[in-house]
C-alpha cells in the first residue's frame, strides 16, 4: 500500500510539473510577455522548441528566416500595437539552396515555410501569417520557390494567410502541397490572399509558376480543399491548380470552390484541375484574356462558376463525359470547349458575349443552355482557334 501511495504521489508531482508546461503560451517576437508566456526570438526556434500540438503566436514584425516544421502545431499571427502583419521573408544573408525535393516531379524547391516529416503525426495549421518571397532570384535552373510547402505525408490547414512575391525568375508558387506517400492525407487551403507569383514565367520543365498547387501520386492520396481564396497576378501555367502538369500524371481529390481569381498575366490558366473527383464550383474568374479560365478532365464537374473577360472560359480536356452546368460566362473568346467529347452533362450554362459558344463537341446538338450575343454558336474548326 505504501508503495502504491508513493507511486500515486510521484504521479501527482509529475502532473503538477508538466501541467503548467502544457498550458503555457508560446510567442515569437516579444509583444506578449509575462509569466504565462514562453518567448522565442525566431519562428524556427519556436517550432523546434514547443511541445507537439502547441499554438505559437507570432507578433507583428519581419522574420527573415527559412522555417521547417516537423511536429504538429499551429502557427498564428497576432495583432499588437496597431500592427497586424507577421511576415516571413527571405533571409538576405542566408543560403538560397533548395531545402526539399518534390516527391511528385522530383524538382528542387526552396520552401520558405516547409512542413515535412511530422512526428508525432498530426496536423500543422498556419493562420494569419504573410510569407513574402521577395529576394529569392536564384532562377528556374536552381530551384522553384514556394512560400508554403506541405511535403508528402503531412496534413493541416492554411487559413487567412498571405503568400506573395514568389517570383524567382518565373518559377514561384505561393502555396504548394503534395502527397507522394501511400497513406491518404487531407490539406485545406482557405481564405488566403495569394498574389504576384512567377510573373508569367513558363519555365521549370512545364511546372511553371502559380498561386496554389496541390499534387499527388496516382491513385490520389491527397484530398485538397482549396476554397475561399483570392488570387491575382499569379503567372505561369496555373493560377490555381490541382495537379500541376498532366504530363506527370499527378492527381488529387478534393474541391476548388468559392475562390476569386483575377488578373492572370500571360497565358495562364486560372483553375487547372485534374482529376476524377475534383469539383470546381462557385469560383469567380476574371481578367485572363490570353489564357484559360477553368481546365478540367474526364469525369470532373465544373458548376456554378462565374467567368468574365477570359480567353477560353471552360476547357474540358476529355474525350469522355464531364459535367459542366450552371456556369455563367461573359465577354470571352471561347465559351465551352469539350475536347472531342460526345456525351456529358452540359446544361444550365449561360453564355453572353462570346465569339465562340461551343467547340470540339462530338455529340448531338447541345440544348438546355442559354446563349446571348454569341458570334458563332459552334466553332466550325476542331476547337476555338
Amino acid at each position, binding site marked *: 500500500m505504501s508503495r502504491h501511495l508513493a507511486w500515486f504521489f510521484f504521479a501527482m508531482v509529475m502532473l503538477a510539473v508538466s501541467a503548467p508546461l502544457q498550458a503555457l503560451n508560446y510567442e515569437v517576437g516579444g509583444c506578449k510577455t509575462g509569466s504565462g508566456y514562453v518567448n522565442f526570438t525566431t519562428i524556427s526556434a519556436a517550432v523546434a522548441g514547443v511541445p507537439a500540438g502547441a499554438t505559437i503566436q507570432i507578433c507583428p514584425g519581419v522574420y527573415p528566416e527559412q522555417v521547417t516544421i516537423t511536429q504538429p502545431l499551429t502557427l498564428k499571427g497576432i495583432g499588437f500595437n496597431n500592427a497586424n502583419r507577421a511576415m516571413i521573408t527571405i533571409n538576405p544573408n542566408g543560403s538560397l539552396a533548395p531545402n526539399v525535393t518534390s516527391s511528385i516531379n522530383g524538382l528542387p524547391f526552396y520552401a520558405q515555410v516547409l512542413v515535412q516529416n511530422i512526428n508525432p503525426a498530426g496536423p500543422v495549421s498556419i493562420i494569419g501569417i504573410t510569407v513574402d518571397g521577395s529576394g529569392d532570384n536564384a532562377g528556374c535552373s536552381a530551384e522553384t520557390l514556394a512560400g508554403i510547402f506541405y511535403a508528402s505525408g503531412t496534413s493541416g490547414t492554411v487559413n487567412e494567410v498571405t503568400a506573395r512575391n514568389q517570383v524567382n525568375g518565373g518559377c514561384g508558387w505561393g502555396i504548394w502541397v503534395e502527397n507522394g506517400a501511400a497513406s491518404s492525407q487531407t490539406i485545406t487551403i482557405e481564405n488566403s490572399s495569394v498574389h504576384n507569383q512567377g510573373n508569367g514565367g513558363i519555365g521549370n520543365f512545364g511546372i511553371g509558376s502559380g498561386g496554389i498547387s496541390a499534387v499527388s501520386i496516382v491513385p490520389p492520396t491527397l484530398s485538397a480543399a482549396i476554397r475561399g481564396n483570392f488570387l491575382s497576378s499569379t503567372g505561369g501555367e496555373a493560377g490555381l491548380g490541382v495537379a500541376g502538369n498532366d504530363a506527370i500524371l499527378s492527381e488529387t481529390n478534393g474541391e476548388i470552390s468559392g475562390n476569386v481569381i483575377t488578373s492572370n498575366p500571360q497565358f495562364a490558366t486560372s483553375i487547372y484541375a485534374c482529376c476524377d473527383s475534383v469539383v470546381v464550383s462557385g469560383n469567380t474568374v476574371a*481578367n485572363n484574356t490570353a489564357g484559360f479560365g477553368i481546365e478540367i478532365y474526364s469525369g470532373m464537374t465544373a458548376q456554378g462558376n462565374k467567368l468574365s473577360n477570359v480567353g477560353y472560359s471552360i476547357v474540358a480536356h476529355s474525350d469522355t463525359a464531364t459535367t459542366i452546368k450552371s456556369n455563367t460566362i461573359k465577354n470571352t473568346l471561347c465559351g465551352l470547349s469539350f475536347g472531342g467529347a460526345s456525351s456529358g452533362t452540359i446544361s444550365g450554362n449561360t453564355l453572353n458575349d462570346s465569339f465562340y459558344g461551343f467547340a470540339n463537341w462530338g455529340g448531338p446538338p447541345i440544348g438546355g443552355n442559354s446563349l446571348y450575343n454569341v458570334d458563332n454558336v459552334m466553332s466550325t474548326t476542331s476547337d476555338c482557334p
Partner: protein
Amino acid sequence: MKHTRSISKHWVLFLSAVALIVAASPAQAANYEVGTCIASLPKFPTIQLAVNSVPPGSTILVCPATYSEQVTISRPLTLRGLSSSNQDRPVIAAPPNGLAINVTSITGANVAAQVLVQNVAPPGNVNLTGITVDGSRAEVSGCSVSAFLAGIFYASGTSGTINEMTTRNQQLPSCGYGIWIENGAGPNQSITVENNSVHDVTWEGIFAISNQTPSTLAATIKGNFVTGKDYNQTKDIEVNGVSGALTGNVVTGGLQGITNDGGPVTISGNVVADISIGVAIAFGDGSTVTSNKISNVYTAFLLGGSGVSPGPTVTGNTTKNTTYVVMYNCIPNVTVKSNTFNDSEFGFDHVPTANSGLGVNSIYNIDTVQTSTCP
C-alpha cells in the same frame, strides 16, 4: 326570370370580352422580325422601322446581323436578339455618318444614345434582351464633359428591363457610357439592369440617377459583369439618388468599382477586383454594404455622406490584397463590423474620434491597423 336575364347579360359581356381578347391578341402579342431569319413573321429591314411600326406590347425578334443605326423606342415593347444558322449576335452599331445628340439628361448633359428609350406612350415597359450595342467607330460631335455617348439610355419616365445585353466599345475619350438610366419625373419608375456584359467603356459602365427627393427611380442592378479600362477613369457602376439594390455583379478594372453617391441602396454579394489605383466600393448616406468580396484594389471602401445617424453599414464583407481597407474620411456613424480583412498595408484611415462606428472585425496581415487621425 330576373336571375336568368342577369346571367344572360353576363354571358353577353363575357362573350364580348372574349371576342375582344381574341381580336386583340394577335396584335398585342405578335412577334415581328428584323431581318429575314424566320420565314413566318412580318419583317422589317431596320430596328428603327420595326419599333416605329409594331403595336404597343409587341415582341420584336432581331436576327443576327449588324444594324448600323441609332434607335429610339417610344412605345412599350420587347426587343430580343435571335439565334439563327449558328449565329447569335445581333449588333447595333454606330451609323457610318456618326451619332446625333438625341437626348438631354436630367444632369443637363447632351447625350448621343445608340438605343434611346424615351417618351414611351402608352406607358409600359421597354425590355431589351440578347443584343449587342457596339460603340466602335462612333463619332459624337463635341464629345466632352457636356456631351456623352451612351450605348443604352432610358430617359425620364421610362421603365423596363435590360437583360443579357452586351454593351461595348463606348470609348470615346472621357465620354463613353455603357448603360444610362434616369428619372427626373415625379411618378416612380422601376428599371432592372441584369446579367449584362459591359466592357470597354471609357467613362461609366452602368449609371443610374434620379434628381427627385425622395427618389423616383428604383434601380435593380444585378448579375452584371462590368470590366472597366484601367488607363481611363472608368466608374464601373454608379448610382446617384436612386433606391434599389446592386447585387451579384462582377466588377473589375477601372478607377472605381461600385459607387453610391447617396440614396437607400443595398450593395451586396458583388465581387470587385483589379482596381489598382482606385476604389472598390464608394458610398454615401443610405448605403447598406454587405457580403461583398473585394481583392486586388487600392482602397476597398471609401466613405462619403453627411455623417448623419444612423449612417451606412458595412458588414460581412471580405477584402484581400488592398492598400487601404476603409477610408473613413473622418465621417462618423458609419458602422463597420463583422467583416474579414486580410492583406492590406493600411486598415482604417482617418477614423473619426467620436462615433466612428468601427466595431469588431477579423483582421489578418495588416501592416498598420489605423492610420491618420481626425481633428
